[in-house]
């Protein structure tokens, strides 16, 4: 089964990213998409983007990336969650079609 690899980041790599990791796991599971998640500090994202297909962060992005980068704060604020989930799945499906 084709797998999507996701970097989940936040500032310190321990608090908000932990919440988002779980949200992403649940989301992809509900859509039947196989996912591998790597939890990181946002400062590591640039050097680790070769290991993944997309990046989701609860921080602003300090730089541009070669993989799709999505802001995941909606998971924390509770505002715009559905829109975010749709965006994540759409992006993932597009990537999987091209794999």
């Amino acid at each position: 089964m084709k797998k999507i690899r996701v970097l989940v980041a936040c500032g310190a790599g321990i608090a908000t990213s932990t919440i988002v990791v779980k949200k992403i796991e649940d989301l992809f599971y509900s859509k039947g998409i196989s996912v591998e998640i790597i939890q990181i500090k946002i400062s590591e994202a640039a050097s680790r983007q070769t290991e993944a297909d997309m990046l989701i962060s609860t921080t602003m992005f300090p730089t541009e990336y070669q993989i799709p980068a999505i802001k995941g704060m909606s998971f924390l604020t509770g505002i715009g969650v559905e829109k975010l989930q749709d965006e994540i799945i759409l992006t993932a499906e597009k990537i999987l079609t091209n794999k």
Partner: protein
Amino acid sequence: MSYSKLVSFIEPSLVCFEKAFSNQLDFFEDIFEKAYSGDFVLNDFLEKIILREESFPTGIKTEKIAVAIPHTDAEYINKEFIALYILERPIVFKSMEDNNEDLSVEIIFVLGLKEAHSQLEMLQSLIQLIQNDKLMTNFKEVRSYSELVKLLEEKEKKNEKN
């Protein structure tokens, strides 16, 4: 939603009500002083938490309220804790979503975590709490640690009845 894990993390000696600070720096100095004298954090904690907040702000704005969850790297934490400040006057924190946006924050959770992956349940309940507008409004009125615990435990009981 069980708030018991969250309650067990909130450190009574680091809970403050109705304090007023002129700005973020005054606030960080206050929590550092308390946390350091209680042996919760290392010496570098103050500098690091200020730096972190500047580069990756932790202001969260829900539909009705704005809170902040400042924290820094695990290596500056000695003993895990959550500190809770309910302020008399809001102070400014920048938004996590847009660091040009100022948020007026009245409730601050300082997270002293060493390994968050083992704290998923507690973090989930923290976010659930923050997103619960009604509960957060009640939170603002709390004036003691025991009132706080009661509020969260009552909420838990209500959930269990459902």
